[in-house]
């Protein structure tokens, strides 16, 4: 699963289309802000306006990009973490957090060990031990109770039939503790295959974060928080639909940390306000636009929507940032139905991408994509199959359909998660395709969207999907989405929504997986992307842009690659 934007993945899809984002990177000159230009002082209360509820506050169950990034800065330190750097390269290079260094690997990446720092403590004052890390890692295996989080470790850690710590027999537990072993403060992970970018995987995600066994209540721990970061949750429980008040954690010792790089922790208090409704995000930004007194110390998880773009003018621009996000949207042709590559090519050629982007809200909201790989992922290059003209060429498409010898109009059912913006954007796609000799039926779906389209027997010809890399490696983009082997089961095509299956592609993936260096891995995957393009296994749509507003008393507002282009909460302070 790609890092989640919002709600369930299904809903996150709707979110990308429904709410819109920004065009950053100085593209339109609206962003002259930088954290350096402001004086950051400690103290005050920061307000966080959130428009959707999290699914859990248990570290092993978290998968939202923004939640992973923010919790890492505020309450859950990991063995490693990504620095708060505006330089994308730096921000995606892990640095030590609870561990003394970024880990040592041996046996060609099959074994990784880390040593815990001295003096790192839980909020109850006890030391964080190697056994805590071991226990946290083991919880992911109890996937009947600890649901929802990333489960990469399940296929890597060298243990078989381990059901997690709750139901394991002593022998099973023993086997796990051999695979993930403790020696004093040193934890060693033993994998069944090389895992070259393991540090990246655990810096951003929490599947190997420590968890204190005596604190654990299984599924009942879903909303409990035992912090080890600079803040703790007042009352110890995160309230799903309300959030929490974060106050300073007296057991946190900045000396064990690198605050400049990982978390400045400036505000004395952070008040979360969660208003989970369809309209709340838009209304947060309405209030931020007017800089209403009660939101002057606020940031929000909600992005400015296109209907509000016209209000981004004058002094509002001083509190506005438009950045490219790590989320890319694409269409997948269904290989069980569209078997002729010419038909798939015709779809790609006829796509009116410019009109589509405009319907999403224009260039503040999205940028046309030329690969399913997001530009923030290392090794990104435009896919040669899709780097042409973006306005759609119905005539060329028609010619392709004629070549394919299919009857026109060729019926196409296009599935997507319905939302007002998505409905409009898909209408543009339909218009372009209809002009090229297709006859498109739009099938807007509800919140269980991804479940519907992953069924191999669905009768959709093309499905919309969105993806954000779990860490900035193409290994977390192409194989999870197009390798049939981990995806297919008798009842589902998994995340390979088009049920695409290709030996050529899969052998390139295998070569990448077994590569000794990241460079070699990248070049195999670039080749694999070319294969996908030639077969039109996907049609890239857009890279979302995030549009952020914040209150006038906020300092240090910026976004980083480490924060998935969400506000970098570790740098944010409040004046007065």
């Amino acid at each position, binding site marked *: 699963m790609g890092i989640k934007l919002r709600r369930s993945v299904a809903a996150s899809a709707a979110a990308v289309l429904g709410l819109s984002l920004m065009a950053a990177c100085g593209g339109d000159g609206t962003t002259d802000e930088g954290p350096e230009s402001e004086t950051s002082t400690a103290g005050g209360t920061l307000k966080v306006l959130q428009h959707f509820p999290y699914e859990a506050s248990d570290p092993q169950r978290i998968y939202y990009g923004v939640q992973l990034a923010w919790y890492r800065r505020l309450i859950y330190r990991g063995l490693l973490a990504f620095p708060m750097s505006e330089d994308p390269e730096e921000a995606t290079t892990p640095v030590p957090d609870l561990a003394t260094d970024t880990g040592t690997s041996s046996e060609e990446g099959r074994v990784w060990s880390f040593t815990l720092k001295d003096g790192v403590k839980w909020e109850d004052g006890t030391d964080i031990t190697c056994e805590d890390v071991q226990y946290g890692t083991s919880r992911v295996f109890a996937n009947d109770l600890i649901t929802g989080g990333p489960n990469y470790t399940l296929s890597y850690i060298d243990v078989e039939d381990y059901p997690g710590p709750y139901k394991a027999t002593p022998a099973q537990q023993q086997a796990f503790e051999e695979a993930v072993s403790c020696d004093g403060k040193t934890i060693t992970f033993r994998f069944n295959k090389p895992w070259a970018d393991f540090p990246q995987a655990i810096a951003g995600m929490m599947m190997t974060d420590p968890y204190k066994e005596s604190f654990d209540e299984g599924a009942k721990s879903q909303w409990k928080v035992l912090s080890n970061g600079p803040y703790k949750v007042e009352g110890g429980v995160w309230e799903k639909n309300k959030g929490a008040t974060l106050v300073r954690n007296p057991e946190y010792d900045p000396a064990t940390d690198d605050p400049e790089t990982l978390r400045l922790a400036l505000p004395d208090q952070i008040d979360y306000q969660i208003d989970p409704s369809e309209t709340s995000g838009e209304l947060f930004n309405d209030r931020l636009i007017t800089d209403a007194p009660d939101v002057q110390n606020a940031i929000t998880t909600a992005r400015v929507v296109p*209907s509000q*773009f016209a209000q981004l003018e004058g002094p509002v621009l001083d509190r506005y940032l438009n950045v490219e996000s790590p989320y890319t949207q694409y269409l997948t042709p269904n290989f069980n139905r569209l078997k002729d590559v010419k038909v798939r090519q015709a779809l790609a050629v006829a796509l009116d991408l410019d009109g589509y982007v405009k*319907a999403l*809200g224009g260039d503040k909201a999205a940028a046309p994509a030329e690969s399913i790989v997001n530009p923030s992922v290392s090794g990104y290059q435009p896919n040669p199959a899709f780097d042409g003209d973006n306005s759609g060429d119905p005539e060329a498409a028609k010619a392709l359909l004629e070549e394919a010898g299919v009857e026109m109009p060729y019926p196409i059912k296009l599935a997507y998660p*319905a939302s007002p*913006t998505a*409905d409009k954007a898909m209408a543009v796609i339909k218009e372009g395709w209809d002009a090229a000799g297709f006859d498109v039926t739009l099938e807007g779906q509800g919140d*269980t969207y991804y479940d519907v389209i992953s069924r191999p027997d669905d009768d959709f010809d093309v499905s919309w999907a969105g993806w954000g890399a779990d860490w900035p490696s193409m290994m977390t983009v192409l194989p999870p989405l197009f390798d049939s082997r981990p995806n297919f089961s008798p009842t589902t095509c998994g995340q390979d929504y088009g049920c695409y299956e290709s030996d050529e592609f899969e052998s390139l993936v295998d070569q990448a997986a077994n590569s000794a260096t990241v460079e070699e891995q990248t070049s195999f995957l670039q080749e694999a992307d070319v294969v996908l393009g030639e077969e039109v296994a996907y049609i890239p749509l857009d890279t979302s842009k995030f549009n952020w507003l914040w209150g006038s008393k906020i300092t240090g507002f910026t976004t980083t690659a480490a924060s998935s282009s969400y506000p970098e909460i570790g740098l944010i302070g409040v004046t007065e």
Partner: protein
Amino acid sequence: MTTGTELESHFIATDLGPEAPEDRKVASKSPTQLALARFRKDKLSMVSFVIVVFYFLAALAAPFLVQAGVLNPFTTHDELLDANTLPLGGFGGISWDHPLGVEPGVGRDVLSRVWYGITFSLAISLSATLLAVIIGVVAGIVSGASGGWIDAIIGRIIDLTLAFPQTLMLLALSSVALAFITEVLGVPAGDPARALYVIVVLGLFGWTGVARIVRGQVLSLREREFVHAAQLLGASKMRLYFREILPNLWAPILVTFTLIMPAFVSAEAALAYLGVSIHPPTPTLGNILRDSLSYAQNDFVYFFSPAFLIAVIVVSFNLLGDGVRDALDPKGHQ
């Protein structure tokens, strides 16, 4: 609460209690002409009537106008939008070509969309109303005519139906019922299945008021001479009730109809807001309004048009219902 379906029972309860003595008119010589005459004198009702007729004509004409290309609810015009994808020229981009402006984002003609939207909104609410009325009339007649345990059972079913929280059920059942409609009944997924869902669920939860009224009427008609006469002539009981009593029920049924209909127009809009009704690009007043809500501050024309059209039809239908009732029953309500 929000669908307004609750209200329907108020209006009915207020205006036409089960004891409303309809039989007086039945007995008069030319009740229809009398009622018509009264109705014609009532200006407000006549205006409402004209508006309702106008909506229905518009709804009927729209598909032909779309076919002929006069209305164009699907063609996008991004040349009419500015960089923020709002309509160029202010006031929602109103022009001769686009009298209500164009839609922000993609520039489709708003007039065409709301006009065509009326067709789908009215088709859904009319079908749902018919379904509710049919179920209600049959249940009411059977219940009132049979008496005894059948009457009791129908009474309990009504209680049970009323106990279900309607809006909540409409929303919560949608995913389950849509799967049932498409996979078990084989209705094509998408708009047909969604429309059917809305119609069926509104109908199934909306018939109880009709049933109660009809039952009351049947009870009062049961003792009348023509019924006795027919019975003496050997007519079967049920046949008797449907053949002889139904024609005498048209007045309360008509009134009920005009009061349920607007409630269902509102309900369709509420369901569209919750994402349950027909999805765009097929327009309904509800799904256009859902999109237009974001533009409350930046494109007021677009924000206001669909809501206004909904309000007008709802008000007109309610006033029409009042007028029809007053015309049929001049005594009761001043």
